[in-house]
């Protein structure tokens, strides 16, 4: 029977199945960070259990780490979570890239970078943006603390089989439009609940044309569409990215693996429970103006008005978003002024993201009313960027150049947007208070964030790019 890649990977990982029960699924890679793991390790300790496969775990510190004055951590609670992770990893024999390790970085950035993330794997982490790893053609999803403990001790999880969904992006994206704009457009068009109960496969010409880093941006935000996971079938782009990575198979073994990986792709004639389609040429550079990721529009448009909506729920959602965001219905997106720009997070802090932003800011200066920071997604990205002089471009333009971590994406460290202020952010969530109590987040691509930082308000990056030598 013809199968989708989702079903192929799922079926391959079933350890045990019985009617009326969820499947017992084997987990190939368990990524760990400091915030959602302490209670899971404590659970092991209390029950006198060990980690079944420490070799399939990899831990790092990202959520709490400071992005300046390393290694000093001012917040005692953050410090405790960090030292606890180090202790737990040592006690249970789990490999750790700690705060000052050269491999440290946001967990969803370093997995792919190190070649740990591979096609066909099942990957979990106590973190909802684990969906990022799906870019390689893996089933990757976030789990809760009890489940972290369950995976640590059994390397398996009980999971009901999710439904399958295809989101097809036809045609080619236009000049100045990025992967971030594609995923924001998808969420805006279909809604934050569209993927509930499903694993999504992204297909279509526009997706095939993306680099691995861009594919990760798309899969990263699958969870913002409510999906359990999102993935993209492996192809030559995937194989070329993985060849030579430290934890990927090497030599002949790699070529054999590559063949297996390519065979994972969805069979001709396989069907999905649901199929959605969007045309790439209808996608513009995007800006969110509301308090969830579906509340966004193309840069040349205006914020909707209550008259645009039929249902009372939608109208009142718009009203309360406007109130929180301090904006007016019907306002042009280019009239929104910002005080902060954040280029970072597991959505958009890889080398190509920083390059895109650097291309915009080169030789220019941040607007006097804007505070702008760049937080590379990993220490490796930071080093690569410094090797080609990106740090200098940013600092010359008035950006702060920081150490890697989650930083202002969730403001658990000192990088906080003050109440009432507005941030052009390359992260993935614009919920109330996400970047600090009372903060106002606008999700955008790295080039759009960089352009807004220079102008003090949102601008159509397609118009600036035309004047810049890249």
């Amino acid at each position, binding site marked *: 029977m013809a199968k989708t890649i989702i079903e192929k990977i799922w079926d391959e990982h079933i350890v*045990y199945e019985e009617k009326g029960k969820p499947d017992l699924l084997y987990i190939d890679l368990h990524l760990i960070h400091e915030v959602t793991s302490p209670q899971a390790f404590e659970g092991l300790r209390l029950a006198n259990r060990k980690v079944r496969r420490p070799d399939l775990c990899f831990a790092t510190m990202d959520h709490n780490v400071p992005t300046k004055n390393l290694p000093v951590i001012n917040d005692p609670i953050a410090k405790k979570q960090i030292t606890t992770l180090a202790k737990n990893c040592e006690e249970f024999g789990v490999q750790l890239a700690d705060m000052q390790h050269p491999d440290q970085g946001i967990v969803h950035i370093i997995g792919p970078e190190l070649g740990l993330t591979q096609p066909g794997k099942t990957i979990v982490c106590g973190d909802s943006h684990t969906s990022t790893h799906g870019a390689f053609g893996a089933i990757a999803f976030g789990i809760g603390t009890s489940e972290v403990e*369950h995976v640590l001790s059994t390397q398996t999880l009980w999971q009901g089989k999710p439904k399958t969904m295809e989101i097809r992006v036809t045609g080619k994206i236009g000049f100045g439009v990025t992967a971030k704009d594609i995923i924001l457009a998808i969420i805006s068009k279909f809604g934050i609940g569209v993927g509930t109960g499903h694993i999504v496969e992204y297909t279509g010409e526009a997706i095939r044309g993306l680099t691995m880093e861009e594919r990760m941006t798309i899969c990263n935000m699958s969870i913002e569409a409510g999906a359990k996971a999102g993935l993209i079938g492996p192809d030559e782009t995937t194989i070329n990215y993985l060849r030579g990575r430290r934890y990927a198979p090497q030599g002949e073994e790699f070529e054999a693996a590559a063949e297996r990986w390519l065979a994972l792709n969805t069979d001709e004639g396989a069907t999905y429970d649901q199929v959605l389609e969007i045309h790439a040429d209808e996608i513009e550079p995007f800006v969110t103006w509301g308090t969830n990721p579906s509340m966004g529009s193309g840069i040349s448009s205006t914020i909707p008005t209550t008259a645009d909506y039929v249902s009372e729920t939608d109208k009142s959602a718009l009203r309360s978003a406007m109130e929180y965001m301090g904006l007016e219905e019907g306002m042009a997106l280019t009239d929104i002024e910002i005080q902060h720009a954040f280029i970072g997070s597991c959505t958009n802090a890889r080398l190509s993201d920083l390059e895109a932003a650097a291309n915009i800011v080169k030789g220019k200066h941040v607007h006097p009313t804007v505070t702008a920071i760049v937080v590379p997604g990993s220490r490796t990205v930071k080093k690569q960027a410094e090797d080609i002089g990106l740090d200098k471009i940013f600092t010359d333009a008035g950006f702060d150049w920081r150490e890697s971590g989650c930083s202002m994406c969730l403001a658990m460290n000192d990088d906080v947007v003050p109440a009432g202020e507005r941030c052009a952010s390359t992260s993935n969530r614009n919920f109330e208070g996400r970047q600090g109590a009372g903060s106002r987040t606008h999700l955008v691509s790295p080039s759009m964030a960089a352009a807004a930082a220079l102008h003090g308000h949102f601008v159509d990056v397609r118009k600036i790019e035309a004047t810049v030598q890249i």
Partner: protein
Amino acid sequence: MEPINKIESVLTPLDKNNVDTDQIISKEFLKRIERTGFGKYLFYHWRFNADGTKNEDFVMNDPRFDGSTILVAHENFGCGSSREHAPWAILDYGFRVVIAPSFADIFYNNCFKNGILPITLSVAEIDEFLRKGKEAPYTLTVSLEDQTVAGEDGSVYDFDIDPYYKKMLLNGWDEISLTFQYEDKISEYEQKHA
């Protein structure tokens, strides 16, 4: 996880509905790194006044209910955020059984993962327990095996429970112990895929 079968205790009457997980365990206590030790923060803003003194009016501060292991409340218990810290706090405080006319889904499932028995009875039955429990300390005897709750005056009520979860609680299996029963299957899988 401690097995549960017969639990006999004075009930604690929490005469409230829509008790959400924010009230059960407030957000400022989520940064602990242990799963235990949340008991002292259970219902913190109800148990303590803003100046940190005990709120003598709150039922859990009434010494007659000290050591009670059965909590009784109104509808929609455990609604709100999915935080697993809520059942952790309830268990750590000493409760093993929560009885209400209805529970929020996630909280209900989290109870089984943590060795707490959530029992659903009718609104009328709960109202009666709460009335009696507030008048004077009132002892309930819960039998999971028989799926009954008996009042000290001889009234007996049946309750429903999923057989899979019942078995888990009766045996004190957490999901992990349960999975350990499939260890040979896991090893077999690992050998095949090595």
